[in-house]
Each structure stands twice: as C-alpha cells, then as structure tokens.
C-alpha cells in the first residue's frame, strides 16, 4: 500500500534520513521505533508532504506521491496524527472535528460530515460530552483522542500516528492503543505507528522497524523484535548481561 525506497531527507546541511526503505501493506499495523532524534518524525513528515525528500521515492497505492503537498496527501487518503497532538486549542472540539473533514466537506455535504462526527463519538464517547468545549481545555488523553478523531474525519485508508503515548498515563495509553487496534479490526484502516514506547507499540503491531540515527537497523515481526536481544537491551530496558564463553 505504501512503499518508501531509498529515501534521503535533511534540513540544511544536516542529513537526517539515510537511505530509508520500508513498506506498509493493507490492513497491517506497522510500527517504527527508535530513540529521540533518530528521525522518526522526519520520516513521517516526509511521507505526509511536510518535508521534501532529497532523493528516493514514495509510492502509495501504485501512485508516486514523493512530490505531493500535504493537503494532496490528505486527499489521497493518508492522515497524520501529529506528535504532541497539535489540536486547534482556541476552537471547539466540534470545530476541530469539522476541520478534520475539510478536504471532504464539499463532496460529502453536511449530512455525511455529521454522520462521520457521530461515528467518532461512538469511537470516543468522551468527545461527545465535550463537543462544545474549547479543545485546549481537554485533558492530555482527551486531546490525543481528539487528534486521532480529527485525522479519521478525512476517512483515511492509512492512518499515521506520531507518538500517541507521549505524556500520557499508562491507563490512557492502553485505551488509545485499544482504540487504534479496533480501528484496524473493524474499519480495516491500515496503521503506521511511530513510538518511543517500544514495548506497547510492539505489543499491538504486526511488524516493526527499528530506526537509529536515520537508518533502519532492524526489521521483522513484532514477536521477533520483542525477543531480539539487541532490541531488548536498547529499547525494552533489559539489563545487559555479560556473556561468559
């Protein structure tokens, strides 16, 4: 569904992504794990058209999208839930959701947008209670739900999430991840998830990639990665034990 080939990206003189290749197939949950500054967000922003790739290609549904602008990408069916939520704080929850359907509003009409909003309320009932509140007054977990719902409003085939667990309590994280897993199971939405919280991400994902200083170091099935000694040491907090022999 989505395939990146030999992507190089950078800001100014600094190369951030070096020769990144990865793919996401329809109906999968794929996660990208890595430490701070490894290039995770840059990679997502390259996919979503916010950052231009210097070389390499991105193909989505057999269509080259390397040079598409951010709003074209959304129209094509890739929505991003940005890092740190980035909801529109001075607007109401309802307006945030409506803006999520900005690209579809004309073709859908008011009624279908409203239906879509109802579906989001079904997914996150807490948003319905807060519909008229300013988005900035929501708690961190509610803001994350709103950010996900806002991205889903555009009816994406591929949902890209940037660190949905950031700054949230463990119980809330579990709630959010369950909602994400349900999205895949019930709506067949494909999910590409970027996380520092490797354990949780790998628990819910089918496959994973490990990124380190702009390069993909490892890839594999989630279970294999969870059992990989290197991943355990670097990302899961396993004590490094000296090996005799």
């Amino acid at each position: 569904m989505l395939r990146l080939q030999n992507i190089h990206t950078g800001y100014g003189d600094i190369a951030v992504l070096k020769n990144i290749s990865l793919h996401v197939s329809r109906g999968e949950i794929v996660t990208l794990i890595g430490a701070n500054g490894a290039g995770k967000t840059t990679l997502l922003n390259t996919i979503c058209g916010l950052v231009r790739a210097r070389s390499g290609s991105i193909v989505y549904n057999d269509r080259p999208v390397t040079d598409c602008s951010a709003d074209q990408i959304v129209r094509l069916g890739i929505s991003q839930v940005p890092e740190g939520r980035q909801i529109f704080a001075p607007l109401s929850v309802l307006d945030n959701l409506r803006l999520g359907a900005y690209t579809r509003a004309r073709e859908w009409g008011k009624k279908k947008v409203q239906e879509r909003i109802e579906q989001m309320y079904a997914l996150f009932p807490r948003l319905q209670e807060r519909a008229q509140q300013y988005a900035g007054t929501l708690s961190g977990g509610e803001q994350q739900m709103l950010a996900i719902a806002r991205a889903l409003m555009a009816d994406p085939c591929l949902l890209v999430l940037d660190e949905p667990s950031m700054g949230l309590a463990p119980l809330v994280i579990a709630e959010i991840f369950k909602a994400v897993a349900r999205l895949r199971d019930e709506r067949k939405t494909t999910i590409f998830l970027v996380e520092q919280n490797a354990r949780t991400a790998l628990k819910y994902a089918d496959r994973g990639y490990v990124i380190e200083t702009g390069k993909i170091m490892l890839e594999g099935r989630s279970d294999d990665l969870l059992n990989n000694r290197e991943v355990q040491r670097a990302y899961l907090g396993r004590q490094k034990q000296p090996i005799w022999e």
Partner: protein
Amino acid sequence: MSIESQIVQFLFTGIALGSIYAMVALGFNIIYNATGILNFAQGEFVMLGGLVMVWLSVTLGLPMPLAFAVTVAAVMAVGALFERLAIYPLKKPPVLILIIITLAGSIIFKGSAMLLWGKKTYSLPHFSSEQPIAVLGATILPQTFWIIGFLAAVVAALALFFNCTMLGKAMRACSFNPTAASLVGINVKRIVLLSFAVSAAIGAIAGIVFTPVVLMEYDRGTMLALKGFCAAVLGGLGNGAGAVVAGLLIGILESFGAGFISSAYKDAIALLVLLLVLVVRPGGLLSRGEASRLKDF
C-alpha cells in the same frame, strides 16, 4: 462654541478617523494571523480604494453601489495578485524579508498610482446629504455616520466569517497552527492568498468611505498604514477586537490633540502612543502576557 460642543465635535471627528485606522489595523491583523507578515502595503489598498472609486463613479459616472462593488473587487484582485507575484514564489523566506517585500510593494503601488492619477487631489461626493447634523451644538457630517456604519458592518462580517464559516475557521486554524492545518488538508498557501484578498477588500472599503471627507491623493497610503500599524500594535498584533478599540482610541486622541493642543502635532500623537505602548505594554492593550512572548514581532 462651548467647550461641551467642542468635545462632542472632536469626539465624532476622532471616531470617524479612528474607524478608518481600525479598518487598516484589521487588515494588518488578518495578514499577520495568516502569515506572520506585517503588510506595509496595507495603506496603499486604502489609497487605491479611494482613487479607483473616484475614477469609476466620478469619471466614468457609474452609480454608487455598482462602483463600490467593482472597486472592492478590483482592489481585492490587486491584493491577490500582489501575493501571487511577490509572496507566493518564495520558498520558506524569513519573515523580515517578506516585510521588506511589502514595503517595496507599497512604493510600487504609490508610484503606479502617481503615474495613473497624477499628483492631483481627488474628491468624491458624500454618500448622502452634505448638510451637517447638529448634535449638542456640534456639527456632524452624515458621512461620519456612514464611516462608523461601515466599520460596524466590516466587524460584523469578519466576526461572522471567522466564527460561523468553515473557511473562516480554517483560517483561524492556520494562524494558530499552520503545520496541523496542513495535516488536516488545508492548503495553507491558498489561505495566505485569501488573507491578502480580504485585507485588500477591507482597505478598499476604508478608502471609499473616507475619501468624501478628506479627499484622496496618491501618497495618502503611507501615513494611513503607519497609523493603522500603531492601532494594530496598541491593540495587540493579531487581536481583532483590540484593533478596533485601539484604532478608535488613536483617532480620538489625535482629534483631541489637534483640537486642544495644536494640529501640527496631529501625526505625532499616534507615534507617541506607539512608543509608549512598546515601552510600557509591548503586547498591546488587550494582550495576555504569555502570548506576546511567543511572537516573532
């Protein structure tokens, strides 16, 4: 004239003047919110509004309402064209460079207006009767009420646009967080274009209603932009309500200053107010402290 009637007289003159400053300040704010740019060509939109209106309604003899609509549309087109030719082609330019471009734009507009209309001063008939109305011993031109009415209409239209339409909300989303706005699929560049068109339209309206009272010539824009800028800063950059309050305040102060001190200091008053604000309350009258620290300017 008694002192009371003098006060009423200055108050109304000041409000009329202030309404124009408020409209210019609103134009500043709309572009500032969408892009972070201070558009110093804003005053030129006012000048163009006045002169195009004179050309259409006096020279060509079009009926007032038609000439009004065509003028606003024409100046909007100029604003949009300016954005497409001077702002749009640049890739991620620093804000300061963009501001200097708008200064250049203002000089070009002024020069073109001088070539087209010459250095003559033009007048426009009042919208309704020119017979002054007596209020508490002061004489007030009916055009004053037109000016105040148009300010009210512009404010109402903007409030409706930003609070009740999807496009207006998208514009607010852009000014709050352009990255998130493009991630929900809002074409930020188109919003920037729209902001220039809307600002130009407001400028044109200000020019049209203002010209009957004070006449219009090619180089009026610079001073209006400066006063409008003072109002925008006084109200807190980007703050719509602040712009209106501050615009009216500067107009009234100027009118009282000219009346009671000396008309020679008329233009100095707005600048004095600007300096005071920048020293005492840099975020503007209606600002909340934290917001102003995060702004580039």
